[in-house]
């Protein structure tokens, strides 16, 4: 692998700028004449706008203009869209209500943007926003998905009667019902998946710059996929044609899904820049982030899992209601359908599965993908059900899982996915050994003597990553293809630029992508630069989400490198008067195999650009591009084990140990992969123990809109983690990569809740398992521990 090649634990190249304060995020951008925006937002969860009077605000110091939704609409700016069409089981298309970038007649959640104030300073814009008088006529409010579906619930969009967006199904209902009716045992539970706010530490920001001479827009923005942003803003929102709109996502401080989407603010700031003839910058504050960044999860499900007399699963029936908030965000429809229900087979051979999913509007922030996106919801549902089933059947949770594991590949599930490779037992065994599972009873007894309650729980997750084969997702309703592009530019002196459509917002692409090049060409990573995040520099690409940058983005680089190598070998063969098939590339040199003839890499690059002596008919230069479209998803999987100790006096849960055993396929940089797992685990543990977006059901006011109210995991909430890998290479892409970005967040919540319910002795507990909930659960009912 070499010291910097594939598999090497290389410290990150990009760190130095972040460590020395030289990172350049959107809010750090300053351009001449730049002014500042503040958005007037609805204080009501549901109301009709009966009038807007901005005259007092416009007269305030420093104010340049106040613009509203009617002006935006008059200028032909389009409504926000959802880019994935889902059809209900009756064949009807999903019912998408209009989402205007600035509300015109109705506001539907607290934080819905109504007007933009542009002023000389951010403080003056904010001051003036308070002087914009908006007359509201309040309407009844509904915040939960169950209430939204009740007869007589407040109607949120005229397009969606009864607030139902779609009623979709997957799998075989008849076969599943038959399995349940013939089962020796059926485990039935209800599952709540709590609503979360992604909370990247960098709040969203955007800087819109209109150049009237060129009739051209530049948009700096906190995006995970600047090309998709440009595409959508051009094709659907009529901001500008693509050639007149440059989107730059510079350093981006985390995304976790929330920066995939194109939000009203980017659109409105670009438009406002043209209206006011000044560059307009907006930076979200944290409360605004809670009010407007797409939330995640928020599912309510009923599950029936059927077993035969040998404890083999014979059927799984799931009924899920997903709360999509007040509007359909960009990929909101795909999350609770094709990113969720297609993973309901988990790691298990289940002959019959049926899932029904209803999505509903409520007067809450739009809900879309958050780290894992559908797969955490599927995993939590399955792994809680498996644990409850093991308890009901009186068998070990490990053995119940082991008995039902899929063991031969490829494996076609009843819910679309075709698993290509895996070894679930290897991860289970590794995790149990690392956690000293068999020694747990002694540890529990010791804790009991100290008056503490110990529990242990596991979770065996699978996810679909490497998103995604374009034709397949197209047939399922996606509005875009999900391939990736790359361009490898060898400079005349042999240094290399790789331009990628992937976007790094913490994942370390500048290091791992350079490692791939170093591995192939034997050049140091210091001579390789990774360029991303600018639509003027990089050809069309699809960005970073769904753990796709390695499996899809790097595969595109491999394809481009193949072409570069082929051309370099032709040049070297010509220069050394050898046969092309005898040329090998090693340690930064092109060699004639079996001889001492060699040319350094830079000389071949130079020869390509001087073009004094190239093979007949060859074009000068050494630069190739490639597009890679995967043939399948990838399927990372693993086993996580949590051991907890609860103080019965306070209900506080301490995590004694957390073990993660993952199969990510081949790994480029173990240091970075471990970091991805750590971060995912922290977010999953946050969901299990701490985090929940809450609304006041009567008023629709969000109650958790600051770090005083929304419990982010902090250093002293978490343990150090024990990681291991049991990798089976992915057969579907050239590097054998499966992806690692989301696993931690997917696999950890059920492990934690299985451990806590093990400790408290019953399963009546919902996330987040706060001390109050755990303490209350401990007071509730005779425990299984007592029975033992």
């Amino acid at each position: 692998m070499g010291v910097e090649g594939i598999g090497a634990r290389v410290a990150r190249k990009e760190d130095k700028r972040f460590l020395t304060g030289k990172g350049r995020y959107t809010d750090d951008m300053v351009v001449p004449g730049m002014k500042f925006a503040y958005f007037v937002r609805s204080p009501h969860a549901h109301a009709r706008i009966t009038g807007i009077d901005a005259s007092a605000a416009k007269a305030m110091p420093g104010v340049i203009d106040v613009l509203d939704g009617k002006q935006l609409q008059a200028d032909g700016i389009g409504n926000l869209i959802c880019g994935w069409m889902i059809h209900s089981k009756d064949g009807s298309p999903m019912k998408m209500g209009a989402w205007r970038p600035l509300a015109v007649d109705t506001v539907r959640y607290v934080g819905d943007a109504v007007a933009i104030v542009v002023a000389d300073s951010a403080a003056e814009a904010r001051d003036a926003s308070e002087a914009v008088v908006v007359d509201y006529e309040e309407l009844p409010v509904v915040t939960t998905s169950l209430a939204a579906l009740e007869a007589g619930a407040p109607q949120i969009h005229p397009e969606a009667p009864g607030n139902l967006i779609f009623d979709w199904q997957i799998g075989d209902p008849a076969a599943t019902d038959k399995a349940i009716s013939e089962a020796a045992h059926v485990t039935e539970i209800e599952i709540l998946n709590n609503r979360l706010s992604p909370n990247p530490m960098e709040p969203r920001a955007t800087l819109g710059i209109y150049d009237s001479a060129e009739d051209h827009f530049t948009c700096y923005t906190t995006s995970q996929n600047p090309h998709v942003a440009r595409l959508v803003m051009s094709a659907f929102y009529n901001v500008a044609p693509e050639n007149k709109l440059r989107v730059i996502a510079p350093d981006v401080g985390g995304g976790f899904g929330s920066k995939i989407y194109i939000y009203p603010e980017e659109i409105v700031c670009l438009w406002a820049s043209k209206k006011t003839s000044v560059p307009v910058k907006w930076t979200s504050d944290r409360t605004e982030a809670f009010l407007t960044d797409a939330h995640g999860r928020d599912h309510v499900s009923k599950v029936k899992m059927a077993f035969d007399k040998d404890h083999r699963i014979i059927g799984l029936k799931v009924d899920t209601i997903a709360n999509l908030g007040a509007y359909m965000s960009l990929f909101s429809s795909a999350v609770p359908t094709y990113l969720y229900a297609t993973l309901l087979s988990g790691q298990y051979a289940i002959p019959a599965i049926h899932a029904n999913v209803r999505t509903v509007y409520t007067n809450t922030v739009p809900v879309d993908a958050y780290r894992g996106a559908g797969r955490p919801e599927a995993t939590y549902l399955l792994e809680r059900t498996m644990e409850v089933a093991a308890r009901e059947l009186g068998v070990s949770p490990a053995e119940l899982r082991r008995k039902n594991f899929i063991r031969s590949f490829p494996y076609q599930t009843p819910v679309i996915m075709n698993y290509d490779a895996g070894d679930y037992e290897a991860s289970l065994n590794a995790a149990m050994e690392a956690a000293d599972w068999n020694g747990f009873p002694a540890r529990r007894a010791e804790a009991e003597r100290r008056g503490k309650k110990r529990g242990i729980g596991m979770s065996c997750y699978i996810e679909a990553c490497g998103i995604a084969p374009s034709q397949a997702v197209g047939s399922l309703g996606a509005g875009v293809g999900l391939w990736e592009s790359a361009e490898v530019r060898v400079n005349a002196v042999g240094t290399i630029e790789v331009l990628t459509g992937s976007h790094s917002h913490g994942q370390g692409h500048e290091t791992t992508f350079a490692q791939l090049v170093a591995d192939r060409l034997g050049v140091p990573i210091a001579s390789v630069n990774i360029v991303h995040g600018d639509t003027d520099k990089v050809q069309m690409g699809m960005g970073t989400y769904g753990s796709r940058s390695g499996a899809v983005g790097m595969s595109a680089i491999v394809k481009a490198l193949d072409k570069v190598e082929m051309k370099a070998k032709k040049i070297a063969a010509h220069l050394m008067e050898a046969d092309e098939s005898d040329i090998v590339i090693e340690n930064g040199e092109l060699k004639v195999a079996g001889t001492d003839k060699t040319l350094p890499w830079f000389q071949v690059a130079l020869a390509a650009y001087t073009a004094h002596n190239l093979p007949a008919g060859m074009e000068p230069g050494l630069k190739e591009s490639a597009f890679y479209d995967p043939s399948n998803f990838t399927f990372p999987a693993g086993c996580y084990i949590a051991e907890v100790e609860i103080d019965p006096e306070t209900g506080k849960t301490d995590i004694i140990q957390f073990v993660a055993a993952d199969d990510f396929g081949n790994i480029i940089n173990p240091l970075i992969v471990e970091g991805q797992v750590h971060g995912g685990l922290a977010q999953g543990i946050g969901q299990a123990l701490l985090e929940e977006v809450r609304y006041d059901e009567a008023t629709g006011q969000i109650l958790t809109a600051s770090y005083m109210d929304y419990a982010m995991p902090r250093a002293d909430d978490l343990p150090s983690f024990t990681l291991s890998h049991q990798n089976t290479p992915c057969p579907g892409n050239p590097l054998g990569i499966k992806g690692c970005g989301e696993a931690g967040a997917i696999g950890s919540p059920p492990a934690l809740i299985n451990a806590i319910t093990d400790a408290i002795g019953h399963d009546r507990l919902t996330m987040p398992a706060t001390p109050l909930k755990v303490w209350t659960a401990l007071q509730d009912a005779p425990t299984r521990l007592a029975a033992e």
Partner: protein
Amino acid sequence: MTKVTLTVNGRAVSGDCDDRTLLVHFIREKLGLTGTHVGCDTTQCGACVVHLDGKSVKSCSILAVQAAGSSVTTIEGLAPQGQLHPVQAAFNEHHGLQCGFCTPGMVMTAVDLIGRSGGDLDEDKVRHGLEGNICRCTGYHNIVKAVLSANEQMHGEVRQAAE
């Protein structure tokens, strides 16, 4: 408008600002030192931590005028240009950062924590000491490793020098 004069990273600076201007905004907008970040509105996240007269403070929770006459060190001034402070180097070595947004505040807090500890740090003390800095990327695992490693190095060096 009030004229504020203070020392930042060893240089005397001054600038006019509204009385309500927070130190973090003065640093970012008047001085162009954008390494100090704003991640919340409630003094919770610590992305804005700088050293004020040698102590770590959240620069979002004091006014620029309150810092008049003081000496401020920001992430940009922690080490001479082109060099890394041992804490910065440890964060790099142990992969204690991902998106980098919380990093300046985290590093400034860690430097102060190590300085105050006299070398007496363990995992629990580091986790407790970093409780006021939120990171969403790393799960803190590698940050804790980096801080312990830097502590070892810095106090090891002090001990060596004493011997």
